[in-house]
């Protein structure tokens, strides 16, 4: 057919651009992902499996999971509280608050880690008091938890604030006018409405918590078998020229990344469907 829409490029331009885009993505994203698994299996499957069950690797996996597991509930609680305050009420300094919530995204992870060394390190503000009471934060798990909290806390809030702003407060006001208490309103109306957005934020925060390197690296002290998360363990193995070990550990993280992408896509699809349903709902007068 010789007919061409007015706003379409010639066929050869479209093919060229598509080829450039796909080629770029394949070379730039696809190849590295593939390389992780190829390098991990370079010495054969048995060597790969042996590297995975190595005690220090196992410990690193568990520590990473533990940190994520502790950090996520805090993120959820903070995200919901911040979004509730920001999306449902007007108060002075609201836009400043939103900017402050974004701050950890702008700060270099290394600087983030360093902030806590200045507070809790041996020569930090609270250092002497901590050592007097024999409590370690820096070069120990608590410090890594705090650093991860800092790095990940905007994710849930940033997802929920725009979502709740779009949804509006009508349904919650309706619940209250029908006699619901605060908790009844929250559990029966608010939470079901934001569950997908909440899950989305949790997925992103979880990926970051599991993969965080810079901030955790600064506060961890790299004590093998004690304060090594999986990404830190990858670094140690790599620097010891244990390529198979490093890439075996990296392959676990890469798999988690793929799981994250899949989960994220599913949730995005669900959310998209819900907004579509909602938009289709709006009476014509309101969509004008």
């Amino acid at each position: 057919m010789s007919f061409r829409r007015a706003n379409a490029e010639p066929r050869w331009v479209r093919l060229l651009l598509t080829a450039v885009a796909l080629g770029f993505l394949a070379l730039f994203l696809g190849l590295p992902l593939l390389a992780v698994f190829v390098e991990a299996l370079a010495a054969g499957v048995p060597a790969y499996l042996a590297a995975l069950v190595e005690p220090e690797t196992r410990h690193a996996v568990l520590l990473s999971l533990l940190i994520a597991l502790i950090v996520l509930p805090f993120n959820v609680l903070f995200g919901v509280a911040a979004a509730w305050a920001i999306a449902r009420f007007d108060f002075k300094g609201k836009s400043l608050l939103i900017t402050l919530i974004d701050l950890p995204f702008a700060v270099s992870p290394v600087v983030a880690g360093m902030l806590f060394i200045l507070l809790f390190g041996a020569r930090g503000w609270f250092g002497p008091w901590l050592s007097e009471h024999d409590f370690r934060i820096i070069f120990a798990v608590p410090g890594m938890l705090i650093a991860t909290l800092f790095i990940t806390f905007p994710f849930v809030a940033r997802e929920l604030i725009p979502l709740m702003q779009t949804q509006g407060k009508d349904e919650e006001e309706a619940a209250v006018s029908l006699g619901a208490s605060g908790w009844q309103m929250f559990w029966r109306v608010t939470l079901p409405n934001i569950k997908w957005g909440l899950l989305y934020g949790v997925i992103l925060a979880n990926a970051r918590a599991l993969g965080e390197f810079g901030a955790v690296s600064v506060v961890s002290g790299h004590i093998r078998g004690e304060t090594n998360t999986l990404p830190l363990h990858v670094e140690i193995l790599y620097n010891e020229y244990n390529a198979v070990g490093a890439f075996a550990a990296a392959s676990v993280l890469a798999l988690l990344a793929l799981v994250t992408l899949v989960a994220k896509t599913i949730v995005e699809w669900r959310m998209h469907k819900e907004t579509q349903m909602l938009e289709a709902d709006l009476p014509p007068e309101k969509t004008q």
Partner: protein
Amino acid sequence: MSISIQNISKRFGSFVALDGINLDIPTGELVALLGPSGCGKTTLLRIIAGMETADAGEVLFSGREATHLHARDRNVGFVFQHYALFRHMTVFENVAFGLRVKPRKERPAEAEIKKRVMDLLGLVQLDWLAERYPSQLSGGQRQRIALARALAVEPKVLLLDEPFGALDTKVRKELRRWLRRLHDEMHISSVFVTHDQEEALEVADRVVVMNHGRIEQIGSPDEVYSNPASPFVYQFLGNVNVFHSRVHGAWAEVGRDEAAAGGESGEGGETLAFVRPHEIDIERGPVAGGLEAEVQDVHPIGPVVRVELAHASELIEVELTRERADALGLAKGQHVWLKPRQVKVFAAPEYLLEDGGSGI
């Protein structure tokens, strides 16, 4: 339950939403709060519901102080403009919500809840939709479910915010009649907010016309239409021709007589005369006190004929019955004489003068 509103004022920042509102709503009455957007009608409704706090003044329910009563304890049914149905609950669960969240002691048994909900759905004629979700309903169906949900807690007062605003014309007419019937059956006091004069005049027992946070007039639909208390009410309810009295000497004369009867013309000040298009007669020959005008256009619209006439530079609109128009046989360019049957004169408020005072 009767509602009494005493001296309610409310500001949002520097914007005055309500300015000393006084209003009494007797038990069983259906009242319309009518006004343009931003006139404060929705704010007043939300204050009655307890969703908003007044800066000053009091709300009394059945003579009892309710100003500081929490929304959940007011026993008020509120229907939101965009329904605010719980999107993740079925129609049944939406209507059952108010019963399910009652404290354990007052909560009806499951069988009782089911019966009450199905009765209500029967009342709004939608029991066959019980298992659907809100997104699967049409606008009119959603509106009725929102009503059923509000009625489930057996409120003493029903408050509706622009109940028909988001519906198309045909559904709107049906629902109006239906709401009227429902109100009469339920024996409750109802207040609804609207910007649509036709809706207010057709449905309500009493109409409260609001503008700029103040009440302009309270009265029966017939009163506010036939005997508007202010230029604003005149202009807001129905079409009207506005004349600068000074410009049209002949009309001012008619106006002065009328002014004594209820207008508020200032002595010697600028005055405006208001005449509705259907309250003007057209004569082919000169009449005493008549105003000469030239026919510009004749539009037959269904049962009436709208005639546009020019007097000097002003446009005048007259509505005739088809019979009268046929008898007159008006043609473009023809010179005729106009005689008003009813005129009302007001001292000219500034906002009207700024508009140039041309009729609608």
